């Protein structure tokens, strides 16, 4: 009875009235466009615009307070003759290469261990992530204190254990300073590798390893011929992200050494900051940042091609 009255009150309309907005949204192309719009706006505001602005700055002689004129590639020519820039390039390459190798090795090792069954597994996995979760500046200040020339707790411990007689000048010695910042980078980066690779490991069916074991494969062979090839696409993506981040690393060095002593730990990003913001030579700072771009582009293209090749095999 009630249903009948409702039906009577609202007669069926064959073609419901639609507003112009609805009509546009009915079109799949427009609908997709509107769904993509927020992302596109965000990307262009925070990625594309700064990038284009950076390129434009790099070909002018702009300084703080001076808009500058177009000077072509002059800033890059200046950089080629800049001894500090050459040090920064070399440091960045060493920094990225060495830390990536260590982060991958230690991260993979940790991931393999975490992939086993043991008590308090979830808790351990959460704890492993800590170095990655703590804000970098905060944890780096703790490291700075540990490497402090006067109050280093590492030196104190080694001294009291009778291992060293004179203190180790962690951040004061040019070679050791670069090693010290690399140690902190590895410490911070390993959890990212471990957790990402762990996720990759969990997608590999344990039956494969079991079957191989029944066929007589040793643990190393099982890793070499089953786990490693299956994990490779994930590994490549993780390495790709990590290389990009490490290559452009800033906070760690800025907090620990400021690029010192005598530029022994100067990286692309810290030098770009020093020139662009510290000195106020915006254009030259932008040119230093952009000099990273071709290198990273090559890394990205090579790795993406490699991933595609692995996946199609």
């Amino acid at each position, binding site marked *: 009875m009630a249903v009948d009255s409702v039906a009577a009150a609202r007669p069926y309309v064959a073609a419901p009235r639609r507003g112009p907005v609805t009509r546009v949204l009915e079109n799949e192309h427009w609908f997709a466009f509107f769904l993509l719009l927020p992302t596109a706006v965000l990307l262009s505001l925070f990625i594309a615009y700064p990038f284009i602005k950076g390129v434009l700055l790099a070909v002018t002689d702009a300084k703080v307070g001076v808009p500058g004129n177009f000077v072509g590639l002059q800033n890059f020519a200046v950089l080629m003759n800049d001894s500090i820039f050459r040090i920064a390039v070399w440091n960045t390459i060493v920094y990225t290469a060495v830390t990536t190798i260590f982060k991958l090795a230690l991260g993979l090792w940790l991931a393999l261990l975490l992939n086993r069954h043991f008590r308090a597994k979830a808790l351990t996995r959460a704890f492993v992530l800590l170095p990655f979760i703590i804000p970098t500046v905060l944890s780096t200040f703790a490291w700075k204190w540990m490497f402090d020339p006067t109050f280093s707790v590492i030196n104190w411990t080694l001294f009291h254990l009778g291992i060293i007689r004179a203190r180790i000048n962690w951040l004061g010695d040019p070679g050791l300073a670069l090693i010290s910042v690399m140690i902190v980078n590895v410490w911070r980066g390993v959890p990212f590798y471990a957790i990402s690779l762990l996720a990759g490991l969990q997608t590999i069916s344990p039956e494969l390893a079991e079957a191989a074991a029944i066929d007589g494969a040793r643990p190393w062979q099982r890793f070499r011929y089953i786990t490693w090839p299956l994990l490779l696409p994930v590994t490549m993506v993780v390495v790709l992200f990590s290389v990009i981040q490490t290559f452009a690393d800033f906070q760690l060095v800025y907090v620990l050494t400021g690029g010192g002593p005598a530029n022994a730990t100067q990286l692309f990003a810290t030098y770009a900051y020093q*020139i662009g913001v510290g000195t106020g030579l915006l254009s030259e700072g932008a040119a230093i940042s952009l000099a990273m771009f071709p290198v990273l582009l090559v890394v990205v293209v090579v790795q993406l091609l490699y991933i595609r090749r692995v996946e199609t095999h």
Partner: protein
Amino acid sequence: MLGAQLAYRKSWFAEVGYDAPKFPQTWEEYREAGKKLKAKGRPLGQTVGHSFGDPPTYAYPYLWSWGGKEVEADGKTVVLNSKATVDSVKFAVGFWNDAYDEGGLAWDDSSNNRAFLAGTISSTLNGASIYLEAKRKPQVYLTETGTPLWQDILHAPLPKGTAGQFGYHLPMSNMLMKYVKDQKAGKEFLRWITSKPVYQAWFDSQQGYSVGATTVWEQDKLWGNDPVMLPFRTAARAGRFPGYAGPANRGAAEVLSKYIVVDMTAKAIQGMPAEDAVKWAHDEVARIYAA
């Protein structure tokens, strides 16, 4: 103006023959005293790292006192690579090994404060912050005999070199940007905050840490409060700015912010021959001034 003076331990310098108010007057004397102090585990402290304050306020006056300078008074002719500069760097290397705390290569602007307050160094170039902090917390900062540390601190200017005695005291400037539309209000504001009664309140709060840029403030009654702060009263008179003997211009600022004069010494301390370190610095400075 933030005055920079050596803060030193009265009793420790007395032990090596400098009863206050006697204090090493030349770099040679300061090095000899430092050598004796370092032998007792009480080195001098100085940062030659990459931080904004202490490294340049030490490195520039040191260079000038030897007769070295970045440019001539014309502000164009780069003359850093000179015998005076090379001599100064050579001396600095021996000085460093003889008398300084080697950790200084990694220090930032606060490290020497901490080291001094912890009693691991005997003297360091700094603003008055070490003394004022020690005085503010007399129970916290103590000497090895348990007396308040602040009573064992005195201040002295950097020693003399063959070319004179210099200082580089950090200037704090207020600027009115050209693009500001209402220039008049900005100028009036600057005039107001630097007027005597307004600036006086700030000056008093500083206890001598930050001093006025004009000699009027040397006559202020504040200087009667604490004799230990007296060396800051006229410190700014020996002050020069980066770029000396030329003007403190854009080139000088770039040399400063790239730590070139500081790194010249740091490189030599790390083992680069003094001549090479000076040549490197000269080339960098020349490149900057040519731009």
